């Protein structure tokens, strides 16, 4: 393909200034991506504004590979909301539905029980030993919208790291050798 030929030609003829320009362009692209991500975090009020669904516990609504848009907001947690939460000893956040809410009279303290739609049991088996409820600090956001299938590529990349390296290598090569 002429594409690869072009890239190799441009690699052979480089000057210091040209290289610096390419590195700065690459840095700008990475920085803009980071800025957009942080901006989304501010706008949605959640630590992770977008998550990928990893398990089948919310089928048939959410399949593995779907992307969920999250928002935190000030409204209190109510039954039926789909929330994303972290358990102390687990690193992967879980996306399940709230089925029980007990809110104390002083409003800020709230006990929440969650369950995946497709699971038979509630999430007490997933919580830390001795933990019966979730509180406000465990919950990272509420799902408000979703896109099907789009996140599947991140699952592929996580399960086959080789593909991740190949993809990043190819993108890096592309960025460095582009003529503009």
């Amino acid at each position, binding site marked *: *393909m002429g594409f690869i030929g072009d890239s190799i030609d441009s690699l052979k003829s480089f000057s210091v200034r040209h290289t610096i320009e390419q590195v700065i362009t690459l840095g700008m692209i990475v920085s803009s991506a980071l800025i957009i991500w942080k901006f989304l975090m501010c706008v949605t009020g959640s630590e992770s504004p977008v998550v990928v669904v990893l398990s089948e516990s919310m089928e048939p*609504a959410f399949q593995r590979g779907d992307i969920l848009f999250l928002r935190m907001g000030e409204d209190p947690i109510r039954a039926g909301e789909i929330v994303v939460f972290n358990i102390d000893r687990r690193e992967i956040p879980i996306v399940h539905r709230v089925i029980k809410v007990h809110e104390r009279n002083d409003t800020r303290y709230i006990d929440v029980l969650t369950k995946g739609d497709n699971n038979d049991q509630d999430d007490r088996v997933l919580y830390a030993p001795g933990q019966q409820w979730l509180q406000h600090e465990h919950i990272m956001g509420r799902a408000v919208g979703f896109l099907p299938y789009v996140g599947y590529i991140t699952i592929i990349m996580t399960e086959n790291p080789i593909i991740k390296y190949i993809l990043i290598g190819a993108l890096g090569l592309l960025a460095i050798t582009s003529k503009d």
Partner: protein
Amino acid sequence: MHSFGYRANALLTFSLTILALICAMASLSDNLNSPSPTATVQILNVNRFQKKSSGDDEVGLTLDISADLQSLFTWNTKQVFVFLAAEYSTPRNSLNQVSLWDGIIPLKEDAKFSTKTKNKYRFIDQGSNLRGRDFNMTLHWHVMPKTGKMFADKLVLPGFRLPESYR
């Protein structure tokens, strides 16, 4: 400028942009729908009403739930998740919501239903406050689209009361 690589890149970017636009429009079309759902709930029997050894009250109920949720479905709807929650307040907790039953409705035809069932999830209070307690049965639904924004709403059915004494 006209190599395969550039053309493939332009095509991919364009198609992804159009796809995103179509998903957004599909989701926006859901706002045109104005639903008019109806529901009734009856408690057929209080099977069990005890104080557990932990000190918390527990109720076992048999319920008759009928609803017509067909107006919630649009062409962009993947499924409707419906659940029935008992909502009440106690001296200690200003709000308690306990889900008693839930179901998934994948098709519009199944959205008009009537079911007699025991409560799927245990109705347990935090404490012993349920005797003679007034409560609402609230039918909640969550419309999950094929793509885009999810809609949730509820119908409050007040006027239920638990027995004055254990049985």
